[in-house]
């Protein structure tokens, strides 16, 4: 059918199938920024365009309907390489982060302001109601609109985008936009899908319908005959290599318990076959022609089922150790199943596992004497808490494009850990690292899920073994059932206290569910203790954790990394203890929290398989956050509702996290001065939308006294940069930023040294200054970087000034904070509304303040989601019943608190680059306990499980 329409003011004619979606038509016409986040569910809004001036979901609009229409796509905003004022305002407000659907959001705001130049907050909310913002929340979108209004009326901004820190510095601490912001918000090619070559084959995966089963036989003969099928990979022909998919430093604290394909499937959605074909249609057709015979086994779906006597073992093969094998390993393996389909489990070092009892890892530790503390206490609270299986729901699903080029395997990955991807791809392909090139593209949402290597292993292997370029993109359903989630945890907390409000003993028993594979099985549950117990000045603390294999969808890394769960349990128990003792909760918190200089003896007992490093508390804004937040929320003042059925309550929780992993993380950067004096920083870091490239650029700009626009950061490319463990454990700013700082300082030294030689002066008489030159304090001589570098690179020059920086440390820079919630609970219907949420955190020196605030908002809203709405629901066969966005239930604009504030507490850190600490993971840790405590304050019930639903409230109130 011939379709004539106008796209971005240009008349176009197409001859297409009228039944194709408008989005497909637009993408084929080059408008790649019209994205798909939900496989045409009509939820996320990444596919939003304007048709005849009205926003529509282009996935739900046929090309045939567009005949005669006037269409505007996000890349039609702005003109000739200049951003529109809306796009610029979004960058300035800090909302352009992972940005997968930021172009669509820009389109919606543009449309709103064209039809309504002075929208109210409700009207802005309504305009954004059709788009799912997962990274930055919606709060600063109101700011973006305000900025546009001011610019249009006054010609400049009046409203501050964020507070400024360290005014003595030029770039650091000043809101200045994101270096990749313009490209992202205008919808330029940036993500993996934009780099896929036209000749790419498609990889789709046949997945298990059963939670636990042996594959008795798999017949691909009929499937292989489908025209266009290139290769089918199964357990029969994949490498016999055991590895793990967690992106962690080598040696990994996760068991190597899987191959690319296994003869035993261990969850609904587990891989059965990978089909590589020239078209998606051929791949799907072939998938349906693969005949698999299963021997279905009884699954275990909860920690309780996994630990029960006689429970089926999820992994029951032999165990191997690379180091630290126990003396009784041979007799242990005698108990293993002899069925080769069980495979094996390989440990890099002991994790306290016992796979025959479904224990993937275990640990225990502590200080003092908790039993004595319980015996002598004035009051003891003992309660068990349960958290649910939460999905990241990144706007960009897991996706990978790989190809062989010149004997090397290039992998375009949306990943947080390019170097770990390279290592694991090397394992499965057998290729050495020098023949693998990983290119981290922009990442459209990670939140921990892209710390795991969930599609890159198979995609890269498929490209290697076929010699063809291969593209793999998860469906949204696969994101739910075949990626990773939070570890559901059962936590029993016993807490002892005295009448004066002192907490004298804390015991945490953690029983975590890691799913069928052990990605992060030890480290996530450990964090529930190691990033919570050190908040307390308590001499008697202990923990005991066991992590169980089950046949649920796999768990893995998720922002917060165990801490949200442990913090929920501890703070709820503390609130209940305060109630039992008749103390004010706030006074109890103030009496028991740590402060700068306090010696954290508990750290000795929190090492993972070794004794931890005891250090004193460094920079700490905890008290200030608590006091300021209590003041903001009017702690102690009872609020009343006009509705007689509604009760209002307040709660808060103190929080902490880490800034990377001391003694484990490693970051490097290479700074080089180009011949014109500009600088390129090759950083091993992985900016996943949080602004890490901008952090590094600012650091170089600050040290080198040169404008930001003269600094380019290239990151996450394993060919171009030196090693970096990647973006997880909140390591980015602290580790990669410090590596950039080291490189910048060494570049400065190199420039001064070269300048001294060129000028014939002493180095000690020379300094750097804006806009990028060396000057002599002694003689007044000036040498621009361009002149210096040109000379250095000449036929008689000493060579380009290049500096290699790196950073490792055993020092710990811990961010602290407190989150506050005010909730309204309808005691007749159980409905809960978060009226106010205040997130107060210290991040040391926020290098990008506007981005930092938005990360706080984004993480807080996510955690409001996991507290009240989110949770994967499995039936008795392990099938996920809500594996789509609508049924899963994520917080969008209408779920945002009416009064939502993020506040940065100013505390300088000794170790962070320019005093910076991490900002983003910690912001996931406060909502659950703050809301739970607020609910108790409102209506007297203690919520002991996630999500805190109306039905649970009603049951606790005795209504049903």
């Amino acid at each position, binding site marked *: *059918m011939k379709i004539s329409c106008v796209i971005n003011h240009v008349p176009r004619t197409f001859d297409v199938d*009228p*039944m194709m*979606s408008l989005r497909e038509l637009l993408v084929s016409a080059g408008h790649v920024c019209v994205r798909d986040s*939900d*496989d*045409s*569910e*009509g*939820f996320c*809004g990444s596919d*939003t365009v304007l048709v005849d001036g*009205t*926003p*529509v*979901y282009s*996935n*739900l*609009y*046929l090309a*045939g*309907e567009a005949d005669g229409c006037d269409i505007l796509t996000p890349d039609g905003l702005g003109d000739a390489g200049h951003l529109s004022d809306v796009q610029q305002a979004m960058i300035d407000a800090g909302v352009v982060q992972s940005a997968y659907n930021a172009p669509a959001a820009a389109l*919606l705001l543009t449309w709103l302001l064209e039809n309504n130049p002075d929208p109210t907050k409700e009207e802005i909310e*309504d*305009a*954004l*109601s*059709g*788009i799912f913002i997962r990274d930055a929340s919606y709060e600063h979108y109101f700011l973006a609109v305000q900025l546009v209004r001011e610019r249009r009326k006054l010609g400049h901004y009046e409203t501050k985008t964020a507070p400024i820190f360290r005014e003595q510095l030029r770039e650091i601490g000043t809101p200045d936009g994101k270096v990749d912001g313009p490209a992202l918000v205008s919808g330029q090619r940036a993500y993996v899908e934009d780099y896929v070559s036209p000749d790419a084959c498609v990889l789709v995966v046949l997945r298990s319908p059963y939670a636990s089963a042996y594959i008795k036989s798999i017949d691909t003969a009929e499937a292989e005959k489908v025209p266009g099928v290139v290769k089918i990979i199964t357990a029969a022909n994949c490498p016999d290599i055991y590895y793990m998919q967690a992106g962690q430093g080598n040696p990994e604290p996760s068991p190597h318990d899987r191959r690319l394909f296994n003869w035993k499937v261990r969850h609904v959605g587990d891989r059965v076959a990978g089909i590589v074909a020239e078209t998606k249609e051929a791949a799907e057709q072939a998938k349906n022609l693969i005949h698999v015979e299963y021997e279905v086994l009884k699954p275990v779906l909860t920690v309780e089922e996994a630990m029960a006597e006689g429970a089926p073992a999820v992994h029951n093969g032999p165990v191997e150790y690379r180091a630290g094998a126990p003396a009784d390993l041979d007799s242990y393996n005698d108990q293993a199943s002899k069925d080769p389909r069980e495979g094996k489990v390989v440990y890099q070092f002991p994790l306290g596992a016992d796979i025959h009892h479904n224990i993937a890892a275990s640990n225990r530790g502590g200080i003092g004497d908790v039993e004595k503390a319980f015996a002598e206490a004035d009051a003891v609270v003992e309660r068990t808490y349960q958290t649910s299986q939460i999905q990241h729901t990144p706007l960009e699903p897991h996706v990978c494009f790989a190809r062989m080029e010149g004997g090397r395997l290039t992998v375009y990955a949306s990943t947080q850990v390019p170097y770990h991807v390279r290592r694991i791809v090397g394992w499965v392909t057998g290729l050495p690292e020098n023949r693998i090139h990983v290119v981290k593209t922009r990442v459209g949402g990670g939140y921990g899920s892209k710390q795991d290597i969930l599609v890159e292993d198979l995609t890269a292997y498929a490209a290697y073994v076929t010699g063809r370029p291969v593209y793999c993109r998860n469906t949204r359903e696969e994101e739910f059932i075949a990626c990773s989630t939070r570890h559901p945890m059962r936590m029993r907390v016993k807490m002892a206290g005295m009448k004066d409000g002192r907490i004298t003993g804390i015991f945490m028993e953690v029983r975590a569910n890691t799913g069928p594979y052990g990605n992060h099985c030890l480290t996530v549950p450990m964090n529930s203790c190691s990033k919570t117990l050190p908040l307390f000045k308590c001499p008697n603390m202990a923990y005991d954790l066991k992590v169980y294999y089950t046949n649920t969808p796999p768990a893995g890394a998720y922002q917060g990394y165990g801490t949200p769960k442990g913090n929920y349990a501890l703070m709820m128990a503390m609130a209940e203890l305060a109630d039992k003792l008749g103390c004010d909760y706030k006074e109890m918190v103030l009496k028991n929290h740590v402060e700068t200089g306090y010696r954290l003896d508990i750290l000795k007992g929190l090492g993972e398989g070794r004794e931890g490093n005891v250090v004193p508390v460094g920079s700490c804004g905890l008290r200030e956050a608590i006091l300021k937040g209590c003041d903001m929320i009017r702690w102690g003042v009872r609020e009343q509702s006009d509705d007689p059925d509604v009760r209002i309550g307040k709660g808060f929780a103190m929080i902490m996290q880490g800034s990377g992993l001391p003694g484990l993380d490693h970051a490097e950067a290479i700074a080089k001065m180009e011949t014109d004096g500009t600088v390129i920083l090759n950083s091993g870091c992985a900016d996943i939308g949080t602004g890490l490239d901008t952090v590094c650029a600012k650091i170089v700009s600050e040290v080198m006294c040169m404008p930001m626009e003269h600094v380019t950061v290239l990151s996450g490319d394993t060919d171009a940069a030196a090693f970096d463990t990647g973006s997880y454990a909140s390591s980015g700013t602290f580790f990669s930023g410090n590596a950039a700082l080291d490189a910048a300082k060494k570049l400065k030294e190199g420039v001064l040294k070269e300048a001294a030689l060129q000028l014939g002066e002493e180095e000690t008489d020379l300094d750097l200054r804006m806009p990028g030159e060396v000057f002599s304090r002694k003689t007044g001589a000036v040498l621009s970087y361009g002149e210096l570098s040109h000379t250095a690179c000449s036929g008689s020059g000493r060579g380009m000034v290049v500096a290699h920086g790196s950073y490792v440390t055993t020092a710990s820079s811990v961010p602290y904070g407190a989150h506050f919630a005010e909730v309204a609970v309808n005691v*007749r*219907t*159980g*409905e809960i509304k978060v009226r106010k949420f205040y997130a107060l955190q210290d991040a040391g020196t926020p290098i990008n303040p506007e981005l930092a605030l938005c990360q706080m908002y984004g993480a807080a809203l996510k955690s409001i989601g996991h507290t009240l*709405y989110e949770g994967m*629901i499995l039936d008795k066969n392990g099938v996920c*019943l*809500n594996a*789509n966005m*609508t*049924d899963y*239930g*994520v*917080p*969008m604009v*209408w*779920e945002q608190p009416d009064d939502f504030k993020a506040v940065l507490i100013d505390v300088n850190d000794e170790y962070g680059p320019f005093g910076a600490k991490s900002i983003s993971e910690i912001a996931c840790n406060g909502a659950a306990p703050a809301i739970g405590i607020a609910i108790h304050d409102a209506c007297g019930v203690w919520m002991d499980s996630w999500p805190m*639903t*109306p*039905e649970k409230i*009603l*049951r606790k109130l005795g*209504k*049903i």
Partner: protein
Amino acid sequence: MSRELCAAASASEAVIMRDASSAYLAGGTELLRSGTERSADRLIMLKNIPELKGVSGETPEAVRIGSMTTFQEALGSDLVPAYLKEALRYMASRTKRDMATIGGNVALMRDDSYLAATLIAAHAKLELLHWAKPDSGESVQDRFGCPDKNGSDLEEASQVRGDQPVREAICIRRYLQHREEYQKDLITAIMVRTDICVVSKRYANTAESHSYLTAAMGYADGRFRVGVSLKNAGVFFPKEFSDSLGEDENAETFARFANSWAGLDIPDDLYGSTAYKRYLLGVTLENLYRSLKERISSGQRTDGRKGETEA
């Protein structure tokens, strides 16, 4: 998976083209989304039919809303009564409201429908267009010898045969009870009263989630009317209960009804337990009743023109 798209220029053309293998394409938010239970070999596009659009005041007490009026267009009309706007806003996504049509939502009569409960409580009427002759299941090919005729050719052919689409107005409750009979009918308009008081309440996990319970209660002509849609149970008009409601009911009335409503099979599912939903239904109906009574006793009624109230 739909394979063919054809455009109708009039309501009659659309009805003529409709056969067992085709479906009407209104806003597309259901038919074209992933996970839909609807499918058809051929989609008949309704967006270019002017007679299906628009909101008009039929009488001082009634408003006619063309079936292809989108949710957002209806919200923007001064004629649409406030109680219906309350239900229209249950569709949380503005983008979706700009696409989804009222007729489409009514035709689906999903158990999580945004509008069904309110329209039932409001005693709304539907204007339908259908073949005069009983449905023999014949295809367009069977009727006219060739499926490739365009709409206007088909209309001419039907005039020659003497088959003319027929308009009929029915109560929405009848539509609900006899859905199968009206399956191929085209809803051309929805008529709603403005001289009626209706209140409603929707429960969903989040604003964008499917609702698991939507209830509405209306009062007019001295009678109460209740509409309920329950996810995984259905859409209901409990006539006997509605007729039994008097001026002085208490909480027990509604709790008893919710717990003992025969024929209502509410499952335990991912939205909650049976006990929770029954309890919630009882509390909600009680709340709606109290809210209605307050309005009635204060002499208020909804005004379809501006959503104003008058004493």
